[in-house]
């Protein structure tokens, strides 16, 4: 409903008069539709993707401006899935931002509301998934600009609520357990510093996720007094370079993720000797990204190489029989994406995409979450950008 109201409220901002005559409004829209087919091992899946953003920048006076954005994103059976190969997601969000110039620098304050819904498989709905969540929050940024370089400090807060998330373990064990949802509710904080200097760019960020209800699991299957707390440190360094007519943006990103949550592995519902894994979710992740882009006439060729390796710190890998082995779990993903786009007119283009993903892991237990597979994806679509 919020999207409908905001769309109606923003009707007049799309008028040509306001954008051209007095230049106080700058409108934009960015839409891409991609429809493709993905092959994982011997399974074929239809896979669609929509990214759409509509918004405007309103210049109140020389120092103050207001930015509003509404977006709708859909991802159907994504190439690089988070939880399941059949998971689809819809994310709608609104962001309103106040921008104030301070000399050559800029202070920004934003509020955000987003609604993220998931669907498992083709028959279920987007209404009851346990991972459905809403995010509400605000953020502050201070951007210091110097010619083409800039330094930016940011803070972000989100209150994340999962109305359907419940304790499945307790539901199975205790028939009187009341399903009230909200178990995964948390407060998310992020502090970051971004720097762009000459052709180099970098990011340093600290993320903190404090759960309001979820407690840490003990080795006897009971919950302790401590609440779950996740922290992560992100470091990114990259380079923008043009070699002949080819643009390339190689970057490296390191994430150190730490969680105090533990894991109890039951081989079946009747398993009386479950295996306890302390700090099961903590990992170090390394990501290398090398995108190339080459434009000629009205065409554009893009190529991207991506390699991700996630090393779990305390979690041992499992064999195909769901038994733990001495080796630690290491997940690796390598992807190659090639796309060709051709401009149809000033603001739209037609695009063809091919992507190959190879995933491997020391963990060979792929029953609930596949880690060892390869995937091919081919798609066509349209993009509009104004």
């Amino acid at each position, binding site marked *: 409903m919020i999207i409908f109201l905001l769309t109606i409220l923003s*009707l007049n901002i799309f*008028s040509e008069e306001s954008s051209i005559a007095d230049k106080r409004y700058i409108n934009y829209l960015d839409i891409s539709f991609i429809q493709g087919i993905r092959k994982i091992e011997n399974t*074929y899946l239809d896979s*669609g993707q929509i990214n759409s953003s509509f918004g405007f920048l309103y210049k109140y006076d020389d120092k103050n401006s207001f930015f509003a954005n509404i977006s709708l994103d859909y991802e159907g059976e994504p190439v690089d899935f988070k939880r399941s190969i059949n998971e689809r997601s819809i994310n709608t969000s609104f962001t309103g931002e106040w921008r104030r110039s301070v000399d050559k620098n800029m202070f920004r304050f934003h509020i955000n509301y987003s609604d993220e819904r998931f669907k498992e498989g083709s028959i279920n709905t987007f209404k009851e998934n346990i991972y459905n969540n809403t995010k509400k929050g605000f953020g502050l940024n201070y951007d210091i600009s110097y010619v083409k370089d800039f330094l930016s400090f940011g803070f972000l807060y989100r209150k994340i609520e999962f109305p359907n998330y419940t304790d499945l373990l307790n539901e199975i064990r205790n028939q009187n357990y009341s399903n009230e949802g909200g178990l995964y509710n948390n407060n998310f904080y992020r502090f970051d510093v971004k720097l762009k200097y000459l052709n180099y760019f970098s990011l340093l960020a600290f993320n903190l996720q404090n759960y309001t209800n979820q407690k840490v699991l003990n080795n006897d299957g009971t919950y302790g007094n401590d609440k779950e707390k996740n922290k992560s440190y992100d470091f990114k360094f990259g380079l923008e370079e043009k070699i002949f007519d080819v643009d390339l943006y190689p970057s490296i990103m390191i994430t150190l993720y730490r969680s105090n949550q533990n894991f109890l592995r039951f081989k079946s519902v009747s398993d009386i000797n479950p295996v306890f894994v302390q700090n099961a979710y903590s990992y170090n992740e390394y990501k290398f990204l090398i995108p190339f882009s080459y434009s000629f006439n009205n065409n554009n060729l893009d190529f991207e190489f991506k390699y991700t390796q996630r090393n779990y710190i305390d979690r041992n890998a499992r064999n195909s029989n769901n038994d733990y082995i001495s080796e630690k779990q290491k997940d690796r993903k390598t992807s190659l994406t090639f796309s060709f786009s051709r401009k149809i007119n000033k603001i739209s283009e037609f695009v*063809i995409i091919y992507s190959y993903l190879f995933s491997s892991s020391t963990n060979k237990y792929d029953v609930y979450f596949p880690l060892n597979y390869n995937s091919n994806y081919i798609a066509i679509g349209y993009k509009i950008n104004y």
Partner: protein
Amino acid sequence: MERLILGIFILFFGCFNLSADLKSYAEQSVAKAIAEPARFFSELRYDSEVIFPVNSGKKYTFNMNFLPSLIPFTYLNSSFNYCLYKEGKLHTSLPQIDIAGGFGYMIGADILANASDDVDSAKIYGYHIGLIFSDSFASKTRIYYGFKHSYTSAKLDLSPSKNHTLLGVNVNSFETQFSENYLIFGVEFLKDLNKYWSINLSYGLSNQSIVYGVGWYGKWFMMGFNFYPEGVIQIHPYWGMRLGF
């Protein structure tokens, strides 16, 4: 040219899917359709719900979808888009306002009920009504946006003395309705005199239905492709009549 490329790729995708695992894919599709029959029949009728804005210089458009709504889905259909207000008539910042409405009635369901001993009665129909706003955005470009309510009713009574299966999936009698409130957003380009190209996105607020389409239309006809990423049949090529007066 882009129409040709798109057509070839869609044909290619179709073959890709058919050769992959036709039986499994068909079973999944039937199961999906049986799970929410009214939603499935709503998808079959959706291509007849024309949301393109009335052309500049015209008062209304009369539309009829031949493929796939009439043939093969047997929906007798018609829709009407009437311009209530022309852009800039009273004030330059006010957009064009169109009211859109139409219906579809599946005669194939009646024919099936009369011809088959398995089906006692069948009635499938639906309608849509909406408001479309359109604004000049840049040279030869209009954006359009609005709201549409779509309703479909599907009723099927099967003979109770028999078991009915389709591709291994049990089919039972049903009487269901599906209504969806869509938010619409699209862009229209004037390519040449009376030749338009358009792309649009519809998002259902009630059931998170998603439809996006690309279409070409001129003085007499419209054609294009609608994509239903969550649908039983994901890609619908369509062709129909669109007359402006």
